[in-house]
């Protein structure tokens, strides 16, 4: 372990502690500022120069923000939830059979398929945003939700296929073969035998797609309409030309931030394998 042989010499605990504190502060200060700012009154947040802390934390901001007329954060929250859940579900439905088959069978066109999947992983909605706009501009009203579900599912599909196929591939083929000898069809084998074994891979894919969709900006921006916007598009619009509701904006931001932080930290360990498509082990 750490003390053996001199190579893995224990680092100086004081230096380590100081560096650790610097790193911790560096990576959390914007979010701490966000929370503190969401607890200020309107007068405090627009004061010049500003004070660092509110005189008393205004938890009531977290209630009042929902009644704010100009932006409607409730609608934005609902839009984000619908789009993120929809895209996640769609990815799961579409990616599961593909990743299972690719992991289990060799067939002509398999490499071409994986290549296509990897290319879409490298592309992003931003570079195709104008094309997506032209494709979906006629989808009015709640159809915007469907458009965003399709877009986010398509661009996150590749990560899901990739990580799930690597999990399926790690389950010994013999288990499947035994099940099929016992008379189960391919589809039944996948659902009853393989799926329960690759659960961690599926959870990783689900959470990753959810968080990515929750945070997606470019497509949601070009397809927004006055009534329906996701949180990343709605949040900056708390800042009008003349009225800037910083405290309400940050209260909404904190609400938008907490669920994804929890979800993301759950899959922390498995993020890498899928993202770099197996280049790093």
């Amino acid at each position, binding site marked *: 372990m750490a003390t053996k*042989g001199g190579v*893995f010499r224990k680092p100086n605990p004081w230096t380590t502690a100081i*560096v*650790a504190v610097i790193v*911790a502060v560096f*990576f959390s200060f*914007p*979010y701490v*500022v*966000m929370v503190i*700012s969401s607890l200020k009154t309107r007068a405090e947040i*627009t004061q010049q*120069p*500003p004070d*660092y802390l509110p005189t008393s934390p205004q938890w009531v901001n977290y209630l009042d923000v929902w009644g704010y007329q100009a932006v409607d954060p409730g609608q934005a929250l609902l839009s984000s939830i619908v789009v993120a859940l929809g895209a996640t579900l769609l990815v799961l*439905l579409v990616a599961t059979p*593909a990743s299972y*088959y*690719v992991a289990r069978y060799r*067939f*002509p*066109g398999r490499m071409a*398929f*994986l290549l*296509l*999947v*990897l*290319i879409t992983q*490298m*592309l992003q909605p*931003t*570079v195709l*945003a*104008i*094309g*997506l*706009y032209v494709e979906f501009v006629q989808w009015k009203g709640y159809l915007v939700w469907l458009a965003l579900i399709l877009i986010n599912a*398509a*661009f996150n*599909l590749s990560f899901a296929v990739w990580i799930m196929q*690597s999990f399926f591939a790690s389950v010994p083929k013999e288990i499947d073969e035994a099940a099929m000898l016992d008379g189960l069809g391919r589809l039944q084998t996948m659902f009853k035998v393989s799926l329960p074994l690759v659960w961690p891979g599926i959870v990783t894919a689900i959470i990753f797609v959810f968080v990515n969709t929750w*945070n997606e*900006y470019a497509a949601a921006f070009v397809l927004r309409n006055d009534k329906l916007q996701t*949180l*990343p598009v709605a*949040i*900056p619009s708390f800042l009008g030309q003349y009225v800037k509701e*910083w405290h309400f904006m940050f209260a909404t931001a904190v609400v938008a*931030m907490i669920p*994804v*932080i929890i979800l*993301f*930290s759950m899959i*922390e360990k498995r993020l*890498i394998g899928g993202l*770099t498509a*197996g*280049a*790093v*082990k």
Partner: protein
Amino acid sequence: MSLPVAPGRARSRRRKEALAALPWLAPTLLLIAGVVIYPAYLMFWTAFQKYNSYGILQGPAGWSNFFGKGGAFTFPTVPWTSVWTNTVIWVVVVVIMTLALSLLLAQFLSKDFPGRKALRLLVLLPWACSVVLTTTVFRYGLQGDVGIFNRFLVDTGILNVPYGFTKDPTAAFWVAVFVAIYVSLPFTTYTILAGLQSVPNDILEAAHVDGANAVQRYWQVVFPMLRPAIAAATLINIINVFNSLPILTILNDNGGYHTGHTTTTLIFQFKAQLGPGVASALSIANFLFCLVVVAFYFWIVKPTKEVQ
């Protein structure tokens, strides 16, 4: 050993195998065809169509969206020198600084110390929180009047008076460079951490026994083994940074064709002011650049070798 099969029969068997795979792959293929490939085609088509100021289609436009009177590359008042310089600086500085800082950070986070797990989770924050949320904090903090970071910079004596960073396109651009590095660090650090874990301990011990000091061990043993991780992270970062929209637009309080644009933010400015035709023309240039980077990714990282 398989027996030699007649070519005709082999071909029909291969076709049968491909057909058996189709139902399993069809939903994925449909989604990619409909929402990735089709919009790419639409974008190329749109680039050669004329739109009026209400965004209504007027018919074929030839190359006028590219080089016409109001074309993407010839539109007056666009400060093209700044746009090209910004785009190059944006990608090069952000990607290189991110890599340098991530190498240091990953080295530190791979050490064994109490609280390491919690610290690794904190490093993940800018990745989990949307870029939009992170950027709005910097936009607020750096306001000339109400900005809390400005207050801090004045209190610590770094600035004499608060500065309106977001009002000045050049200052806003450099703040955006900082924020872009900031939000790219978690992914890059985690990729390099994964690479560090693949360096076997006994090789490091052998190098130590052979008399290599810490610096030599890093540059001659660890760093070469990190190359695949660095290549993958760098190429993915180039695409992400190049396509980054919200950081630059949210941090810039100026409108119009100011000197803080990159080609990506300019596309959305064109779309708002000149319509989808001109915006598509510029998008195609961006799209082709991304395809080149993707080609490099496949050439250098060879991601498909894992699944032979």
